[in-house]
């Protein structure tokens, strides 16, 4: 009834090609933004920020990044954890070397450095495809983790090899370090996520995105119609790694505050983010958000219900939680292999006709 194209006249091409062509969608989008930027920072407390929102926002950035590579360009990567580590360590080195420069610039530079590393490890993708490539990216994962663990320069020669983020401020508010307020953390991550998601959405709609998709769908055919596989694949690796690097920098500096590479950026992280984009939907920005929300919220929710509400022993709850997460993943894939995004799309299709389906 409200969700319809009828009566929504477009008089210019710009209007026609906007991201949300349906008026209701647009308003919904503005409303969500208003809540996210306006209301949430006032209401948020430490628990919600640290257990739910900040990890969600950061994982969403990483998921968008991986989705660019895997969902849009079709190159499966299991090196996400390693690239996040690059972002984190780059950010740490920059933060400690140039304390007077704004943390925002450090985070973006960390993304840039990760992009460079990503291109380097993306080179084999020109020869290797499919699962072979996925396993090959594990080489990046393990090598990078080893490197950050082994070379003391990366962790400023501290005794244990842990890195911890000193306090840095933006406009007088601490955004890293122990004295950061919940809303500052949240807001900082939200702003970056918003900017990057907006950028990703528009990249994927334009020439670059179309080239990626051409390569994904059939690389030989794409090559024949004039898409250069070298630049296309490497640009996907670069941009994807930029996102992942930014996510890694935020993950370390804002969320954890201290990190140890093997533990915080291990192979588990690579799998987790791959889960997010598959559950959410490959090749979709919304899917990245939905998948990140699903994988962050579900364990916390299950734990709270099983331990907090039902009073189970923590180990039983943890085991059952594993089983439920596993079963849900399988059920999801069976019910909707194209992820949450597809469910959302179907719902919108239905809604367009509702309440008069004929």
């Amino acid at each position, binding site marked *: 009834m409200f969700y319809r194209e009828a009566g929504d006249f477009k008089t210019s091409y710009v209007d026609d090609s906007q991201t949300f062509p349906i008026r209701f969608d647009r308003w919904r989008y503005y409303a969500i933004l208003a809540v996210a930027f306006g209301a949430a920072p006032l209401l948020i407390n430490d628990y919600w920020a640290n257990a739910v929102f900040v990890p969600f926002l950061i994982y969403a950035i990483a998921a968008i990044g991986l989705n660019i590579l895997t969902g849009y360009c079709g190159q*499966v990567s299991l090196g996400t954890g390693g690239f996040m580590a690059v972002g984190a360590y780059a950010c740490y080195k920059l933060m400690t070397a140039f304390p007077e420069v704004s943390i925002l610039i450090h985070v973006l530079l960390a993304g840039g450095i990760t992009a460079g590393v990503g291109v380097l490890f993306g080179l*084999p993708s020109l*020869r*290797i*495809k*499919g*699962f*072979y490539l996925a*396993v*090959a990216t*594990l*080489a990046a994962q*393990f*090598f990078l*983790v*080893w490197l950050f*663990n*082994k*070379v003391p320069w990366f962790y400023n020669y501290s005794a244990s090899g842990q890195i911890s983020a000193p306090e840095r401020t933006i406009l007088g508010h601490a955004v890293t370090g122990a004295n950061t307020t919940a809303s500052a953390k949240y807001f900082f991550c939200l702003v970056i996520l918003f900017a990057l998601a907006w950028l990703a959405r528009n990249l994927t709609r334009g020439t670059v995105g179309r080239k990626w998709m051409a390569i994904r769908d*059939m690389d*030989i*055919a794409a090559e*024949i119609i004039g898409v250069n596989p070298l630049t296309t694949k490497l640009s996907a690796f670069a941009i994807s790694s930029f996102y992942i690097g930014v996510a890694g920098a935020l993950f370390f500096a804002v969320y954890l505050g201290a990190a140890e590479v093997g533990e915080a950026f291990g*192979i588990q992280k690579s*799998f987790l983010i*791959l*889960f997010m984009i*598959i559950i959410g939907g*490959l090749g979709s920005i919304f899917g990245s958000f939905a998948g990140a929300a699903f994988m962050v919220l579900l364990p916390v929710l299950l734990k709270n219900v099983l331990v907090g509400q039902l009073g*189970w*022993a923590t*180990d*039983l709850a943890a*085991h*059952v*939680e*594993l*089983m*439920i*997460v*596993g*079963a*849900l*993943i*399988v059920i999801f*894939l*069976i019910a909707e*292999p194209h992820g949450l995004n597809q469910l959302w799309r179907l719902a919108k299709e239905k809604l367009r006709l509702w309440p008069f389906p004929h």
Partner: protein
Amino acid sequence: MSDQILFAMEVTLNGLMAGVMYSLVALGFVLIFKASGIFNYAQGVLALFAALTLVGFQNGQVPFAHLINAIFGTNLHHFGWHLPAVVAIILTAAVMVLLAMIVEKFVLQHLVNQAPIILFMATIGLAYFLEGLGDIMWGADIKKLDVGLPQGANEAFEAVTDSVFGFGLYIDNLDIVATVVAALLVLSLTLFSQYTKYGRALRAVADDHQAALSVGISLRFIWVLVWSIAGIVALVAGIMWGSKSGVQFSLSLIALKALPVLMLGGFTSIPGAIVGGLIIGMGEKLFEFFAGPLIGGATENWFAYVLALLFLVFRPQGLFGEKIIERV
């Protein structure tokens, strides 16, 4: 002979043996990938699950004891019997077959014709599930697995090499057993797939699903069969690895050791899994032994992958993999 050469020989030998252990895990991957195109990430967890079940049977543990106790307030732990290893192994194999049927019924059957990455994810979901299930059934503490396999240095070999080179080379008895078992396993798998009706059906399915279906081969049966075999291979891997380190969660991580082996050998080749294992095992041990101390050690994890990556750059389908032919 100089010491360095002797050490190199010893490391090479041990690397080859370690490679056999990797191959045991890789074999399970290959079997399933060949027959159904599924990259079964759960293979490592299958090994853990099998080993846990085996120890549980052997020691007469009550499955789900913790859960039952929590719900009913009882205090169950053990049935109070100790099964002989052989009986426990047969029972565990039966459980693995049952598991294969359940997996086929509830997972695979519903995912026919999906993209490979979806199937891959489904197996990761399965891995999570089995991990939780294994823990909840048998408990998360470390367990000693003892099916009577010998452990420790092989003295006969040491004595022989000592008399030849003046330096006794070290080989672990368990590794020797693993090598023999792996050889038998590959031999029986080869015989099975070459000379039995089901083996032929298996190969037909591996070649072409649709053609196999059209000549009346039941795909579902083949899947159950191949997952059962993979389960039993996982059991063997679980026994070998578990005897070494005890049975606990980390056992499932041996899957990560098998991945470079697969890359190198090709996802579809059983000899590839063996040869790949040998190359990876030898390569990473030699590198760690000689280059490790120079660059700080603990290189094995990434070196295996880098080695495989280098191979792939020259042969993108692995050593023995089928050539990928692409048409527009």
